[in-house]
């Protein structure tokens, strides 16, 4: 199979990126040292090509009502144009079809940004929900757009240095808000636990933007650093921490499921019937002897759990993980993770591990 490429692929290759197949896309995993890229984002600014993710525009008179039924979080919260909301889209069994961000621009125009590996499935699912609801709306995948994330404590400053004309429109943005600046959508969102922007722009504009931001000191960072950053920030990764068979309630995403009123969203009945069966918590490896990884078993006093994402945390200098654990396990408990032939001690902690450059767990 030929891998799909983003408009920045040649730029990545020219700058020495090591690339991998990520959801069918040839994407940079690092440009040298993953750990140094990670630190650049925590301390200054890093630059990510996330054009493999897909923007999907929903347009028509009934978009808000459609999304109130399609998503587990309630887009009724989006009252001001530019506001964004993180949500899961569920199947009828309450499993997660995808996790996504919804941006509200006008009553007849919302934009979703969905994961790369699930994009085709999401489009098919949205099409099915539209047919079932009879809603009048168009669903447009925007493969003509590219997405760049600039993240870190100095990210916004570096972006404004490169593009001073965008400052007036984007400086007032609070977290999870976006502004349209010409043909660019600039959002104060990200997947690193740091401040910064995600910029959605015409594919033809992305190479000059990348080169300008990199020349201005934002360090290109690959999916490797993106994964250690999001894990430290306690953010879920679709396909690893949850999938079609996982309830958001068992994946630490209950905070995104809005059950406040009687809204009848897809998957709600199944969620309410099934309830929460496991809890999603962080682990900090206290023994030495390896690195926590996905699928390792966790022994607790209440039964067995499993790591869904694990890595070595560059900020903490220790291995960390996100895990689904039996109900009753408490923060502060010591549990044991099976790493090869050893049972290594780990402490149960509340994620995030790191936010805005600050370590939030005791080492």
């Amino acid at each position, binding site marked *: 199979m030929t891998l799909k490429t983003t408009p920045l692929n040649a730029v990545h290759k020219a700058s020495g990126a*090591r690339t991998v197949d990520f959801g069918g896309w040839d994407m940079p*995993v*690092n440009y040298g*040292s*993953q*750990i140094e890229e990670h630190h650049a984002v925590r301390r200054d600014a890093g630059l990510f090509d996330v054009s493999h993710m897909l923007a999907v525009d929903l347009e028509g008179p009934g978009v808000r009502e459609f999304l109130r039924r399609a998503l587990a979080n309630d887009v009724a919260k989006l009252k001001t144009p530019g506001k964004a909301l993180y949500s899961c889209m569920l199947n009828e069994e309450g499993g997660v079809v995808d996790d996504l961000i919804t941006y509200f621009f006008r009553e007849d125009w919302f934009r979703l940004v969905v994961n790369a590996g699930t994009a085709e499935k999401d489009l098919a699912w949205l099409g099915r929900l539209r047919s079932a609801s009879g809603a009048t709306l168009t669903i447009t995948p925007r493969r003509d757009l590219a997405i760049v994330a600039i993240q870190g404590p100095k990210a916004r400053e570096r972006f404004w240095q490169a593009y001073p004309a965008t400052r007036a429109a984007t400086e007032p943005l609070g977290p999870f808000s976006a502004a349209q600046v010409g043909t660019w959508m600039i959002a104060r969102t990200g997947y690193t636990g740091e401040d910064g922007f995600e910029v959605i722009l015409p594919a033809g504009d992305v190479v000059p933007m990348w080169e300008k931001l990199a020349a201005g000191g934002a360090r290109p960072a690959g999916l*490797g650093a993106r994964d*250690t950053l999001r894990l430290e920030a306690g953010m879920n990764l679709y396909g690893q921490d949850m999938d079609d068979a996982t309830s958001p309630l068992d994946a630490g995403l209950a905070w995104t499921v809005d059950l406040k009123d009687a809204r009848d969203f897809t998957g709600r009945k199944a969620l309410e019937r099934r309830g929460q069966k496991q809890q999603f918590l962080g682990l900090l490896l206290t023994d*030495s*002897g*390896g*690195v926590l*990884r996905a699928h390792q078993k966790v022994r607790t006093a209440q039964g067995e759990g499993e790591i869904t994402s694990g*890595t*070595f945390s*560059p900020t903490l200098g220790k*291995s960390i993980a996100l895990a689904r654990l039996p109900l009753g396990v408490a923060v502060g408990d010591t549990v044991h993770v099976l790493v*090869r032939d050893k049972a290594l001690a780990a402490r149960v902690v509340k994620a995030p591990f790191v936010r805005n450059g600050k370590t939030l767990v005791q080492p």
Partner: protein
Amino acid sequence: MKIPKELRYTESHEWARREADGTVSIGITDHAQEQLGDIVFVEAPQAGRKVAAGESVGVVESVKAASDIYAPIAGEIVAVNADLAAAPESVNEDAYAAWMYRIKPANPADLDKLLDAAAYEKAASA
């Protein structure tokens, strides 16, 4: 890809060097460290262990993956590099200085059966 001429290699990306005392130092190649990325954990075997050629004797873990270390030849583990536990990144800095353990070979001629630099270069770029 750095592949010193004077060393011997395996297809599983170990290098082997004969020392003056007849023991053989083992590490992972520059190509291996480059593939693994930032190395954060090295588990070396216990000294005194007798090993067969091809036996898994330790583990290297990078941020992204774990990889076994194999014994290129049969013999007895006589020394381990304790410095690597505290400074696993030294494997990234200089893979051929960062030896992991030493074997006293059961049969010293076994070393000559391993890949030479030219053969390893071919194997590693395949």
